[in-house]
C-alpha cells in the first residue's frame, strides 16, 4: 500500500485569492454557481453578493469543492498577542489587532471518514492514496453522507435526468494523482498555502511551522487535524491562528458509528419496555379473563 497523501493548508499565508476554487472548477469541468447560466443568446446572471466579506461562494456545493473563507476580526483574542497587523491608532480603538483571516476549505479526507462509514452502497471508498473518493456510478443518491460529514463538504449534484443526482465532493484530483500530478488547487495556489504531499512529510513541515510561529510570538498558532484527535486524523489538515470555530470548523466532530452501539442498546431498552407494556396489557387482561372463565385456557 502506498503512502497516505493529502493537503497541509497553512492559513497564515492564504491571501484569499480563490485560485484554488477556479483551478478546481477548471480541471474538474465544474460550472459556476449562477442564478442563470449563460448561453450563446443570453449572458446569464450571477447570484447576488453575500455581503459576507469577500466570500460570495457561501458554502461548499456540488460544484464548489473548495471554498475560501474570509473572517474579519478585530477583537483582542483571548490567547495573548496576535498577528501581523497591529494598529494602536488612538483614532479608532476598535481596530486594534484587526485581522483578516482567510482559509481555503476543502474535503478533509478524514482517516475515519464519516461519509465513508455511513455510505450504504459502497460508493465512497478509500483509495490507494488514503483519500476518500466517491464512485459516482455506484452512488444512488441516498444523501446519508451529506448529513454525516461534519464539515458540510458533500452536496448532491443536479438531477437524475441530467445523469446526475449523485454525491459530489473533492476527489483530491484522483485522476491527476494516478498520473503523478499535483491536485489542481495545490498546483495553482500562488503562496503555497495549500501544500500537497505525503502526509508524513507534511506533518513534519507543519509542526516546524507551528514551532516557528510560536517563537515569533504567535502562541495561538495551532494545527487542526494533524493528530488523531479529529476523526482519526485529517488527510487535509490545517494550520490555524485561532480556535477552529472561528474558521467555521467543528472542534469536536463526531464519528457516526460512535452512536450506533449506545443508540442501539437504548432502542433495545425501549423495545423491551414496549414489549413489557404489551405483556402487562395482554397478560393482565388474560389473568382477569382466566379468573372469570377458567375454561378459557382450554380454547
Amino acid at each position, binding site marked *: 500500500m502506498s503512502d497516505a497523501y493529502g493537503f497541509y493548508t497553512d492559513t497564515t499565508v492564504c491571501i484569499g485569492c480563490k485560485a484554488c476554487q477556479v483551478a478546481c472548477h477548471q480541471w474538474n469541468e465544474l460550472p459556476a454557481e449562477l442564478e442563470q447560466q449563460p448561453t450563446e443568446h443570453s449572458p446569464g446572471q450571477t447570484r447576488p453578493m453575500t455581503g459576507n466579506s469577500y466570500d460570495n461562494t457561501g458554502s461548499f456545493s456540488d460544484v464548489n469543492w473548495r471554498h475560501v473563507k474570509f473572517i474579519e476580526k478585530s477583537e483582542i483574542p483571548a490567547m495573548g498577542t496576535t498577528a501581523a497587523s*497591529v494598529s494602536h491608532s488612538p483614532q479608532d480603538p476598535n481596530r486594534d489587532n484587526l485581522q483578516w483571516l482567510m482559509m481555503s476549505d476543502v474535503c478533509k479526507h478524514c482517516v475515519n471518514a464519516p461519509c465513508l462509514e455511513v455510505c450504504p452502497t459502497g460508493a465512497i471508498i478509500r483509495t490507494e492514496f488514503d483519500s476518500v473518493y466517491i464512485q459516482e456510478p455506484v452512488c444512488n443518491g441516498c444523501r446519508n453522507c451529506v448529513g454525516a460529514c461534519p464539515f458540510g463538504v458533500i452536496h448532491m449534484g443536479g438531477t437524475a435526468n441530467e445523469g446526475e443526482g449523485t454525491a459530489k465532493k473533492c476527489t483530491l484530483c484522483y485522476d491527476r494523482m494516478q498520473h503523478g500530478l499535483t491536485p489542481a488547487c495545490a498546483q495553482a495556489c500562488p503562496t503555497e498555502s495549500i501544500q500537497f504531499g505525503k502526509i508524513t512529510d507534511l506533518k513534519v513541515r507543519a509542526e516546524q511551522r507551528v514551532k516557528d510561529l510560536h517563537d515569533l510570538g504567535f502562541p495561538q498558532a495551532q494545527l487542526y487535524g494533524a493528530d488523531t484527535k479529529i476523526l482519526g486524523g485529517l488527510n487535509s489538515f490545517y494550520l490555524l491562528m485561532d480556535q477552529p470555530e472561528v474558521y467555521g470548523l467543528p472542534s469536536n466532530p463526531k464519528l457516526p458509528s460512535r452512536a450506533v452501539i449506545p443508540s442501539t442498546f437504548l432502542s433495545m431498552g425501549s423495545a423491551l419496555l414496549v414489549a413489557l407494556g404489551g405483556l402487562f396489557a395482554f397478560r393482565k387482561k388474560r389473568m382477569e379473563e382466566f379468573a372469570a372463565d377458567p375454561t378459557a385456557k382450554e380454547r
Partner: protein
Amino acid sequence: MPGLGTSFGRGGATNTQQDLQNADAIMIMGSNFAECHPVGFRWAMKAKAKGAKLIHVDPRFTRTSAMADTYAPIRSGSDIVFLGGLIKYLIDNEKYFKEYVVAYTNAPSLIDPNYQDTEELDGLFSGFDPAGRKYNPDTWKYQSDLPPGQTQPVPAQDESQSFSARVGKLVGPPPKQDLTMQDPHCVFQIMKRHYARYTPEMVEQATGCPKDIFLKVAETLAQNSGRERTATVVYAVGWTQHTVGVQIIRAATILQLLLGNVGRPGGGILALRGHATIQGSTDVPTLYNLLPGYLNSPSALKTHETLRAYLDTEVTPTAYWANMPKFMVSMLKAWYGDAATAQNGYGYDYQPKIVGDHSHMPMFVAMSQGSIKGFFAMGQNPAVGGQNAGFQRKALAKLDWMVVRDLYETETATFWRDSPEFKGKSSDVKTEVFFMPAAAVPEGAGSFTNTQRLLQKHEKAVDPPDDARTDLWFTYKLGVRLKELYQSSTLPRDTGIKILTWSYVDPEENKQWRIPDEPSSDLVMREINGYTVSDKKMVKGFGDLKDDGTTACGVWIYSGIYAPTADHPDGFNRSAARTPGQIISPNWGFAWPANRHILYNRASADPAGNPWSERKKLVYWDANAPATDTQGKPTKGKWVGIEGEVPDFVATKAPTTPANPKGVGLDYHSGADPFIMKADGKGWLFAPQGLTDGPLPTHYEPYESPVENMLYHKQGVNPVAKLYDKLVPGNAYSPPGNPDYPHILSTYRLTEHHLSGSMSRWLPWLAELQPELFVEISPELAHEKGISNTQLVNIKTPRATIQAKALVTKRIRPFVIGGKTIHQVGMPWHWGYNGIAHGAVVNDLSALVGDPNVNIHEAKVFVCQIEKA
C-alpha cells in the same frame, strides 16, 4: 514611468519579482500586491518565510495588509508626506548608507545658487510662471560652467560629420561637487531643508498614520538596509494615479538611494504593472510621445525639423544615450528599408510630428469636439475604464466610425445600444461601428513583456474560431490594403506608406493552420532585434548598431533577443527560451536591456568593485578574469555576475577608471558610476531636469480633497496639474473642504476581476466570485448615515451619481486629519452594463485631471457624497 527614469535612467522596474526573495524588508505602498498580483506576491511571502519584514502602507486594510508584519494606514493622497517623513528620518538620524550616497548619487552635487525651494516659497519652486501654469527649470540646474545634458551650443552644420561624431561636440564640463555634503547648495543640504517640516508629528497629522507605526516603518527600513541587508519598495497604480504620481515615485527613489538599495539583490523598486504587456507597449510604445526604446516622438514644438536637429536636441552626450543616433537611424532603416537614405533623413522626413498632448484625456476631449472622426479601440474599453466615463461614452458618439477589437461585446463596442446615455436612443448615434473578433492568446504566437522587463513568448496552440483573427493579422492586413490603396498615389505625403517595409508572412509557418496569411511574429521579432542591412544577419545586440544606415533595428532596447548563438547561427528567439534557473534564470525569456535582470547592478559592488557584503553579492569586479575589451583585444579583469546575471556596465571597465571630462558617452563616467543612462552616472536625488513640477517631491493635496494642505499654505495642490474643467462640460472639480462632498473615494481592483472587466465579467468562474459592484464603507460611516450591509446606496461626485451595494467593514477606517474626522470609501471599478456580472460604471464618478508629467488621471483619490438610495 518617468519617476523611475528621471532618478535612475530607465522607466522600468529595477529588479524582478523573484528577487524579492533576497529582501530583508519589503515596503508595499501604492499597491495591493496580494490582490492584484497574487503570483508575484508569492515571492514576497517567500521572503517573509525567510524572515523578511513585510510592510504595507495603504488607506485600506486589504488582503495584502492581512499578510503584512506592519500595516500603516494612511489617508489616500498623503503618500509624499509619509515618504518625505521617512526621508527626513533617515537624514536626521544619519541612517542613510553614506558610502553609497556619496559615491553613487548626486547628493554631493551643487545646484544653482538661484534655486529656491518650497521651504522658501511656501509650496512653490523657483521659476514658476503663474500665467502659463508652468515652471522654467533653469534655476534647478547643477552648478557648472555648462551642465551635462544641457548641451554646448549646437555646432555649425557640418554635413560631413557622422551623427555619433557630432555627439562629442555636445559634451560639457561636469557638475561641481562637495563630497563632504556640507555646502548649502549641495543636493544633500537642499534635501535636508526641503523635508524639514515632514516630522513624525506632521506625518500623523496629515496622513492619519499613528506616529508609532510610522516610526516602526522607518526603523524597519533603516535596520534592513546597508551593507549586509537590503529592502525593496513595491508600488503600482496606487502611486501613479495621482496629480503628483510621478513625484510619489520619485520620493521612493530618493528613499531607496539614501538607503543604498538600488542595483542590489533584494533592493530596488518593483513597479507592478496591470496588463500582460503594458511594459512592452511602453517599450514598443503605442503611445503618442515615444518612439521605440524611449526615444521622444518628433515634435513640432521642439527643434525637430530634421533628423540632425532632432538628434542634436534629444541626445544626452554623456551617458549611454550618446549612442541614440544609432538607435534612431537603425529604427528608421527598419521601417523604410532601401528607401531610407541619408538624403531623406532615413525616412525621418515622412514621420509625423506631434503638435501637443495627444494622450488619452486630450484624445477624448478632441473626440468630444468632433475633430477625431475615426477610432480604433484595440482591446481597450474606455466606456468603463476611461476617466469620467460618461463623458467618454458621449465622445464616442461623435465619431464617424469606430473599430473595436475584443473577445467579448464590451461596453465600448455597444455604447450606442446599451449605455445609459444612448439606451433606446441608438438612432441618435451616427457612428459606424465594426466589431472585429479577436483571437485569444492560445490562438496566436507573440510575446509579452512582464512587469520585470522580461519578454516571454506564447506559442500558437490552435486556430482562432470563425472570423476571429490575431491582432497581428488585423493590423498587417489593414496595412496591406492601405499600401494597395496608396500604391498609385504620387503625393509626397503618401510616400511613407508606400515605402514602409511590410513583409511578415512566412507561408511555411502557416502550413499546419487554417489561416494562410497569418503574419509571423517571429519575423516581426527579427526586425525588432535588428540586422545588418547588407546580409540580413541578426545583430548580437544594440552594441552592433550603426548610425550610417548599415544596420536596421526596430526596437533597440530589445536588440539581442534574436541574437545568433552557436546552435542557431541564424538567431534564436530568446523570448521562447524556457530553461529555468535560479533566482536570476538568465535562460528563461529575455530581459531588456541585454538580458540584465537587476538594473544598475554595478551598485551591488562598492566603488572599488567588491561586493558590499558576501550576503548581497551580485555583480563584482574580478581583476584577474581574462576578458576582451570593447575593441576586441584580450585584457584582464571584468565584471562578473552570479547566476549568469549580465552586468549593467561596460564589462571590462575597471572600477578605478577615472571619469574623462571630455569623454563621450560612458567615457565621461568613472568606473564607479552605476547609473549609465544618466548624464552624470549618478542616481538622482534631486532632479535638475526632466520633470515639469519640481526637482524634489513635495506634498500637494489631491486635486479634490476634503482638507487643506497642512504643509504649505500658499500652494496647496500641484500648481501645474493638467486641468480639464474648462475644456469639458460636466467635468467640474470640488474645491478643498467642500461640505457637499465630504468623503474621500478611491477606486481599485479586486483579485477576482481584471480592469474594466472585459476579460473577467464574461467568465462565469470569475463573475460568480465578485458578482456585484459594491462600495466599501466603515461601520462608523455606515452608522452615521444609517446604512446597513448590502443596502443600496447612491455615490455622488460633481461628475455623476451611481448606485452600488454597501459592504460595511472595519477594514475601512475613518482618519483624523488635522483634528477633523475624514471618512474614506472605496470602490472596485470592474463593472459595466454588459457581461454576466454587471453594475454601474465607477469611472463615471472620476474626473479628467492629470499629472503634469505623464497626464495620468487621479483615480486613487477624489471626493464624494454617499447616501442611502
